[in-house]
């Protein structure tokens, strides 16, 4: 019995390979998702989808740009953002050699030109996102689309109030 155990044990492949000669991961291996800055419109769908809050969208007042940042150090490689992206800018990659001595190398940053509200001047969306919405052919009011959400709400509310008054 001991002999069988030994024989069984020694049959098989090598246990260890030195670094560059390692096996590649499976063809469908999920690596970190990367952002294509050309396609990205800065809509923030990926930010909402991300369970690990690896993605963030913020407005930088000093540089006057919207910044989408992907922190691969936090990423769990689930590719939920890839599913959420409306333009296919979020692409899953096959990368697996991610070790680095600098944390900044694990961050992807995409900058977007902001759109400022026509009424109050606060930035509320990215230029490309507005262009994308207009290009989809969804019926939007051409005036309201260039106002920020709060001004938009105010306008709609005052319009409704006027109508109610007229009816009364």
């Amino acid at each position, binding site marked *: 019995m*001991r002999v069988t155990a030994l024989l069984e044990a020694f049959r098989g492949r090598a246990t260890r390979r030195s670094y560059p000669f390692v096996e590649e991961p499976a063809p469908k291996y999920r690596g970190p998702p990367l952002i294509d800055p050309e396609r990205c419109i800065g809509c923030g769908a990926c930010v909402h989808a991300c369970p690990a809050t690896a993605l963030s969208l913020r407005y930088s007042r000093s540089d006057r740009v919207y910044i989408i940042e992907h922190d691969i150090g936090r990423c769990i490689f689930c590719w939920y953002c890839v599913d959420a992206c409306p333009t296919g800018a979020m692409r899953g990659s096959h990368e697996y050699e991610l070790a680095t001595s600098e944390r900044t190398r694990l961050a992807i940053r995409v900058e977007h030109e902001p759109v400022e509200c026509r009424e109050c001047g606060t930035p509320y969306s990215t230029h490309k996102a507005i262009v994308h919405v207009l290009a989809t052919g969804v019926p939007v009011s051409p005036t309201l689309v260039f106002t920020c959400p709060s001004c938009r709400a105010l306008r709609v509310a005052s319009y409704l109030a006027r109508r109610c008054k007229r009816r009364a």
Partner: protein
Amino acid sequence: MLPETLIEKLACTRFNNWIMCDVEPELLLKIVPDIHESGRCRLTTCLAYDARAFDNTFHVVYVLDCRARGYICLRVRALPPGYRLPSLASVMDEPPCTWCEWEASELYGIVFEGHPGKGRLILPDTWPPDYHPMRKDAPPPPEPRVEPERVQAPVKGRGVPLGPYHPALHEPEFFELIVDGERVVGVNYRGFFVYRGIEKLAEDRFSFDQVPFLAERICGICGFTHSTAYCQALENALGVDPPARAKYLRTLLLEIERIHSHILWAAIMFHTVGFDTGFMHLMLVREDVMDAAEVLTGNRKTYAANIPGGVRVNPSNETIRAVVERVSRAARKAVKLARSYLEVSEIRSRFENVGVLTRKDAARLGALGPVARASGLDVDVRRDHPYAAYPELEFDVPVRDEGDVLARFLVRLEEIEESVSIIEQVASRIPGGPIRSHVEYRHLRYGLGATEAPRGENIHFVVTGYGGRLWRWKVRAPSYNNISILPVILTGVPLSDAPVVITSIDPCFSCTDRLVILDLKRRKRMVLKPSRVARGGGV
């Protein structure tokens, strides 16, 4: 009382495969002990949730597993001002609800009158006694204070510490073994050092479709079974039926997970008795199974493959066939290796007649999974409460009567063989079609999801909340029940066998513990000196 008459008498709501009944606390105390002891239904767990927003009470739900009749949940209400309830654990002899009532009293502040537990179970001793983190209006937790916890004085004999960090344990858990000479005569247990607050986190900041990504991180080994149980609970609550192909894919991944988990467990058993050669060989074979999981899902731990309503990966039938062939080969080899090692008398003698759990004790204490099946208790969620594609597949449930560590070993090896047959059936029968159904979220629905994890019955309970968030998500991992029976099976074993017995139930401490105690434990516990506990050879 028969479960049928019970259901007729009470106000019950029928769900797909389970029933929820409202009971008065007095009646609960009268009927549950009889039902549990008669063996018609097994009390498996209980859970609480904050319902003060709806009817100003806390709800406590006792889950009974009634085999073919499905799960029966008995719900009692803890009324204000004191939120007091009579304790079910106080009227039964060490029932499986001791821990969960204790947990509810700490996390929600429900007072269980007559509960046998003394001190804290989950929260650190240094936290204020009136702080209950799972309440919906709980403020942020207090700053942790680093302070040694009190050590319970041994009643008689000498106390030998085993843990929280010990080379023979793989996760932080503290056993104080009280020994008389070389024999363990009593056990003090302190766990939950890695309670991470996953349930609270999910309720507060995750939307319902993101929770599977958190659920699979409950356990580092059997993650897929947790995400499946969660998805099933939610699908059950919302009345969604995943497509057939998704069910088959879930079954396939669940069984692959069972195979690699059991191989890992067998390897660790050999490691525990000092046979590291066996450990290395089995881990090498297991690597093939992990690679196969990576081919199917893109991740060796099958992460991010589940979603409420179906699955997110759709490998081609050829890939599935190739993977199944590879896994079967590896699994058969692992079983052959383990069996041949068990023939070696020195190894076999470490397992035979060690840590015996009798059938009666297994039933009384609520043992689950392979531990229960090695003690002659024929329970398996896959057969008793079929889910995923299991109703359409043929498989046996291996059961043994010896109840010792060797029986637990053999039951698991037989289970690997059954799993191989299951995945082969999946590969030949898997239907085509879509892999995901549409899920429409509604608030205040109840759902129960149960899966047979590699370690036993895994229960997830979901109450859906507002704005796409969960109101309550309760996870009861199988080790929760199995660890609480450890003090019973450890009593009477020689000290040198204690690590073997602890490892034999395949304890998953991180599944059982769910909050964080930051750095609290690392600086306390001066008792962590090289102890006299024998650990086999090369550990």
